[in-house]
């Protein structure tokens, strides 16, 4: 974690006067924006324009691929995401699951613990849920089964998250690589279960084998319970991070380990405790995926949400309420472009390309929030015109 600090150490002394100005210099140089310039409005404007530019670009690309007119393409995307009740529920459900995983990774990221293992943490919890359904389903009364499922999935998520945390806390083991590797261990464990549970050699264990322990429908909506659970979790995580003592310690450790030491915070304890929370939330996500959504398990069940969640959380600057919006953006893109691909008979991977491009733009635009490019007036390029422009 100490390593992160080096890059964070901001250039308070990067005075423009300290920038050398010789003929060999480039025509532009980069200056860190003063803190006064980093206003919320400006940042929002830069981010919004990045998204708009990216959407336009994707629209243009789609025109080339499909030959349709742009308005109709955006209309199709909108229809795909929010067009009718079915699509809307599906969108909300996707939003709930992705948001849940994003909530799970957020406490760790706030602490600058780069957990790239949410994929595995969710999957292992999904596996635990499925195993509870498979082995205890029908053998115990439903409420008991539900309890076992909750306990099992949360415990699995916690174990998967806390192992790298312990090694990070005591030996400084690189958490990015450790958690990444744990994903693939989880995938293979699921494969083992698939082979054990379904002797036919299929690569999913489906609803026919996991008959018990399904989440009930509320008001005739099978996804409503998921959505409500995630809504409650969002508020809880927001409160936890913002108003609890734990959340405060997480922020201090993330911002400056030195300050944490200065006030006597046990950094090791905070790292481990926070990953327990992260893992438990991943556990809930796994539970929702299996018991509340698919009623089946396969090794691709999480479908990259663990990685997408990292971007959701990072884009929202680790604010759970903002994450509702960033999740919505990604889910909209995904569902919208899926609609475009079906309408024009493209293959489904097209939406991944669009998502990728838009992410590139959003990631790239952060630079312009923190830095500005200033024309080097002494450069010969500007000697004649004599003008300088601030971007």
């Amino acid at each position, binding site marked *: 974690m100490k390593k992160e600090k080096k890059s964070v*150490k*901001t250039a308070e*002394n990067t*005075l423009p*006067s*300290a920038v*050398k100005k*010789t003929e060999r210099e480039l025509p532009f140089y980069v200056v860190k924006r003063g*803190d*006064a310039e980093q206003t919320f409005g400006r940042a929002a404007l830069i981010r919004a324009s990045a998204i708009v530019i990216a959407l336009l670009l994707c629209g243009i690309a789609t025109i080339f691929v499909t030959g349709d007119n742009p308005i109709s393409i955006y209309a199709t995307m909108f229809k795909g995401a929010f067009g009718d009740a079915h699509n809307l529920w599906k969108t909300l459900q996707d939003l709930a699951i992705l948001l849940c995983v994003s909530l799970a990774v957020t406490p760790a990221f706030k602490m600058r613990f780069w957990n790239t293992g949410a994929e595995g943490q969710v999957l292992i919890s999904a596996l635990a849920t499925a195993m509870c359904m498979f082995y205890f389903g029908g053998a115990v009364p439903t409420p008991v089964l539900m309890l076992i499922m909750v306990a099992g999935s949360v415990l699995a998520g916690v174990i998967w998250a806390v192992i790298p945390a312990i090694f990070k806390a005591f030996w400084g083991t690189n958490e990015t690589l450790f958690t990444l590797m744990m994903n693939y261990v989880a995938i293979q464990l699921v494969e083992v279960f698939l082979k054990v549970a379904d002797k036919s050699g299929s690569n999913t264990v489906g609803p026919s084998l996991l008959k018990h322990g399904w989440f009930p429908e509320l008001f005739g909506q099978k996804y409503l319970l998921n959505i409500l659970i995630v809504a409650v979790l969002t508020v809880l995580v927001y409160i936890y991070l913002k*108003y*609890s*003592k*734990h*959340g*405060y310690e997480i*922020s*201090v450790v993330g*911002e*400056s380990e*030195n*300050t944490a*030491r*200065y*006030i*006597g*915070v*046990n950094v090791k304890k905070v790292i481990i405790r926070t990953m327990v929370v992260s893992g438990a939330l991943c556990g809930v996500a796994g539970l929702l995926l299996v018991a509340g959504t698919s009623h089946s398990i396969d090794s691709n069940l999480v479908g990259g949400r663990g990685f997408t969640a990292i971007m959701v959380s990072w884009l929202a600057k680790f604010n759970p309420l903002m994450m509702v919006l960033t999740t919505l953006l990604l889910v909209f893109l995904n569902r919208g472009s899926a609609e475009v691909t079906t309408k024009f008979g493209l293959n489904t991977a097209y939406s991944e390309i669009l998502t990728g491009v838009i992410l590139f733009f959003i990631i790239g635009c952060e630079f312009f929030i923190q830095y500005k490019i200033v024309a080097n007036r002494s450069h010969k390029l500007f000697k004649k015109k004599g003008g300088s422009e601030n971007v």
Partner: protein
Amino acid sequence: MNNVAAVELVNVTKTFGSVVANRNVNMDVKKGEILAILGENGSGKTTLMNMLSGIYHPDEGQIFIDGKEAQISSPKDAFAYRIGMIHQHFKLVDIFTAAENIVLGIDDGKFDPKGISKKVEEISAKYGFEIDPSKKIYEMAVSEKQTVEIVKVLYRGADILILDEPTAVLTPQETQKLFAVLRQMRADGKAVIIITHKLHEVLSISDRVAILRKGEHIATVNTAETSETELTELMVGQKVALNIERDAPQGCLDRLTVSHVNCVSREGVKLLDDVSFTAKSGEILGIAGIAGSGQRELLEAIAGLQHLDGGEITYVNPKNGEIVNLRDKNPKQIKELGVRLSFVPEDRLGMGLVGNMDITDNMMLRSYRRGKSMFLDRKRPKNLAEEIIKSLQVVTPGAGTPVRRLSGGNVQKVLVGREIASAPSVLMVAYPVRGLDINSSYTIYNLLNTQKRNGVAVIFVGEDLDVLMELCDRIMVIGSGKITGIVDGRSCTKEEIGYLMTKTEKAEEGENA
């Protein structure tokens, strides 16, 4: 040939924002000469040398190398002018060998480890270094790393060498070895500039001494014709009256006792060497010393942030006279023992405060654990924040502003305000007025005086001797991790403190060559 200076600085001025680091400096170094640059902390020595090594570019003035005007705008340019600087913080890649570090960045065609080692050994033999080209940097002691830095510079063919406080990290024996090497270089016709605080070293090694004070060049004297007393006077200057109020200490009782404290760094260097003193209630104890002499370690040891290798730190509880041992306790445990200790660290935004948090949240850093609830109580800190903003006249849009947006003086007011608010019985402050304007500085002095009147034991680490002499009741001087003396703040002279600051064990041994 000897008439032309190897380096000549003419009217060099450098400013950072509104702070003038160097003003109209004129100075020269000849070939085959060792020039010492002497000055207190913040007198602009390093900035001046950084302009020669291409890290900074002067705002005004000229630099002449061998009589020709030079434009040095990058370290690469400096190499081209055969200038090599050995920085205080070594710029070495830890997992590389000495040889690999030495040739790093040089592009002269083929890469021939054997040839490099041979050349390194040639240089070493010529000047009397001991160096193993295949040894990894992380396996090296500090003195060896320094040798690598020097060879690195010589390998590039430097004729002008600048050493920034090279002896700060060396033992007396290692210093003698280094000096032997420097004399060898002088004999070889190289121009050597050495920055140091230690007077006996200046007298022992240099041919001439240039003295800087507050960014200005005061004088250059021939070493043979000067004395320690004269140099001290030139360095510290005349006493300046600041008119800081000072009451007579009252009701002085022993509050905090440090006895025989030792502290060794991971490299085995003694950071604190048998330090003993007592801080009394109702007085301000000043700590003077060259930067990096162990002040930070001492305060951190008391605050529970530094592991001790020996000694005791005890605290007398003013309420019941109970004696508490603080050794090997962390800040949280110290607090739980009922010790009311406040600490304003040197690194304000990196340790004392969290830059990205607002003033209210920074108020909570020390007190957020209060109460059994798992939630934070932001009401009290918010009131405190507003109180401090009002009483200390902090310029800020509000209590919800992140502290990194505040100016240096306001940041310091927030930090000191918070530390005082917990009604401490011991208050430690490190360089509390560094970077502050006059008004903010006086606000801080007044706050410290109020605390003193309230019976707090105040420990003040400062760098400006004038301030220390007007504010403190007693001044303790620390040099190389050792206490070199404790003087009375009212009766001592500036020269006396200056002498204690530069006095080291080595000087006492009278081992001046």
